[in-house]
């Protein structure tokens, strides 16, 4: 500040980027110094949006093109907007894959029999999920995605869904890495959430639902995989 800096650049390889950036941004605010901060280093993509939410102007992970770094710093220093091609894509939910698609059904036994007959695929897993008050059955496909049948057993929301729509597609589930961090980021952005923290779901995974309003009326579920013991 005393040296009239235009941009502060941090290089962090230790993994402490969240804490360091937070403290720096807070200190700058306290000093009423409007100096943009950019960060580079070993920063996983899932953390990028969190850093930007703190007020960091740009984040550059490993293998960031030099030109983008230069243009961004130049733009920030001269008060211009960051050029579009230099702006890294927002991390968003940063799903690693589609985990499953779920159909809500009235009679789970009959539906399992129907799917086994039509798809020629055996149900791989069935359980009662107490936290969600539902019976669930999963049909697993070789690419890792699954089809879930879900049937309310005391879950008022799902019973209302059935009343209104009958057996129907219910939600898409996306696999994420750190569910609580993703939820925190979405919440900070004002994305409407049903669950603000992960809850126990089927197969020992932790899950959370976004409000249908968050995604054009389609219900999204986030799934953080239960760590399976390696064999």
């Amino acid at each position, binding site marked *: 500040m005393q040296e009239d800096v235009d941009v502060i650049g941090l290089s962090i*390889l*230790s*993994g*402490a980027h*969240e*804490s*360091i950036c937070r*403290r720096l941004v807070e200190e700058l605010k306290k000093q009423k110094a409007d100096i943009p901060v950019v960060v580079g280093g*070993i920063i*996983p*993509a*899932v953390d990028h949006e969190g850093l930007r939410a703190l007020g960091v102007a740009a984040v550059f*992970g*490993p*293998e960031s*093109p*030099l*030109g983008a770094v230069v243009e961004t710093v130049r733009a920030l220093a001269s008060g211009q907007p960051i050029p579009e091609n230099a702006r890294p894509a927002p991390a968003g939910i*940063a799903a*690693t*894959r589609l985990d499953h698609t779920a159909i809500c059904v009235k009679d789970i036994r009959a539906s399992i029999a129907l799917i086994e007959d039509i798809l020629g695929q055996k149900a791989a897993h069935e359980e009662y999920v107490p936290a969600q008050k539902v019976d669930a059955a999963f049909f697993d496909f070789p690419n890792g995605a699954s089809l879930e049948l879900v049937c309310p057993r005391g879950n008022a929301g799902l019973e209302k869904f059935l009343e209104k729509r009958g057996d129907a597609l219910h939600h898409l589930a996306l696999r994420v*890495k750190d569910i609580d961090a993703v939820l925190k980021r979405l919440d900070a952005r004002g994305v409407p959430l049903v669950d603000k923290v992960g809850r126990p779901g089927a197969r020992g995974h932790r899950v959370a639902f976004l409000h249908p309003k968050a995604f054009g009326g389609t219900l999204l579920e986030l799934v953080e995989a239960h*760590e399976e013991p*390696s064999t």
Partner: protein
Amino acid sequence: MSTTRSGIEVKPVYGPDDVGQPPPPPGEYPFTRGIHPNMYLGKLWTMRQYAGFGTPRETNQRFKYLLGQGQTGLSLALDLPTQLGIDADDPEAEGEVGKVGVSIGSLADMEELFTGIPLGKVSTSMTINATAPILLAMYEEAARKQGVADDRISGTVQNDLLKEFGARGAWLFPIEPSMRLACDLIEDTVKRLPRFNPISIASHYRDAGANPAEEMAYTLCAGKAYVENLLARGLAADSFAPRLSFFFYTYTNFFEEVAKYRAGRRIWARLLKEKYGAKEPESWRLRAACVCGGHSLTRAEPLNNIARTTLETFAVACSGLQSVFTAAYDEAFAIPTELSARTALRVQQVVAYETEVAQTVDPLGGSYFVEALTDRMEEAIGKTMAEIDERGGFVEALRSGYVQQRIAQRAYEHQRAVEKGDVAVVGVNKFRTVGEAHEEPEMEITSASPEAAREAATRVARVKKEREARKARAALRALSEAAAGQGNLQPHIRCSWESPASTATTAVRASSRRPCATPAWRWCTPGCARAFRRSRRRRCRKTST
């Protein structure tokens, strides 16, 4: 004509006209072909995987796991607060405790780290620099408490402060007091711990951007600076030179790496014998460890890194180094998982036991290309070393920023070359998978638990509360008085372990010698340190004006 990473021109074919006199056999001066006549037939390289994170207990478990998998030495990674002498409960340590290594705040932590690991049998390499004097004192004490005699304590402290100025940045004191502490440790240790390497002169310049010839040149120049400091103390070269060790980086430019090590050994041997007058062949030998990985590894398509580290490890096996750390394929992400750490060790074991490379000493010796490239590398290294000499030696070249500037320039040139496609990086600028594989790969990421940081802070706070403040203060005062004089500080640092002040925490010890010139430093650790620091500050103010 093509060139190597060091800019040496390479011909399509080499023949008898390209090589001069064949080098003497391995084990003979100047050791181009290896420092021992039988090399790996006598003793295979030490497989030493860098490990450490979270609490001493967690790292102790990882050490036991690695030893159980056939690893033959330990390599301790310490977190940044420990490297900088900041206690885990200091606000400045927030977010860093247990991140890039284990947090060691007191003797009790060091003892717990090695619980159940016999320090008389296992050697430990500690990557520690600014606080090396303290960590060594703790390590010795932990070994003694296990009943290990001084002449059985073996291992290495990195203790190379010059590369902190040149490339890494984790220094605490200006360059002269840093040199004093480093050389105090060397002088003191060679007298007392015959199996301990008091320095590992390291080549982080390479990972910061220097090319292979410059890497070897800067590192040997640093070696010269330490030798000259120790000679100026009146020590004979043969009393310490055999205990100096080196640490290098190895990337995938296979033949150039082999030539680099062969040329480096030759230059070091000549320096020690001819320039510094060492009489013992032990003093002429460049003993070196290395890391395979570092900046050569990529974030994109991380499994490709296993191919890279395999080639690098094979290059080292062909070069005859003494100790190897093969990096894990997920190094560009986070702390290695058990799977990636084990796979890295397996890479070494495959090279050692399946390729038959260890059956023949200097297997590439006599190759027209390798011998010619060794000569060219020697010239290139010598040229850079001469440029450093012209600038008044390495310490001066660091002080003026010359070395740092040159490294930054090289890093820039390399990045440009990668982006233009002049230097191939498979999966990044060549043959890159379009689509999902270029997004962040899905990897299991290990990270230190937040509980680890809390636990470390609690432990340090407890030590501060339970120690005998008056005795700790007295020990620190003695140390501080010694620091004002000219004598060797290491005995004072070590001796205070034997008193009840042995529970003094890492930070207090470092701060007792930290000059007030460090602007980032705040005097905020509670307890006995505060009063001491006030007096120290006054003294600093006096001496600095």
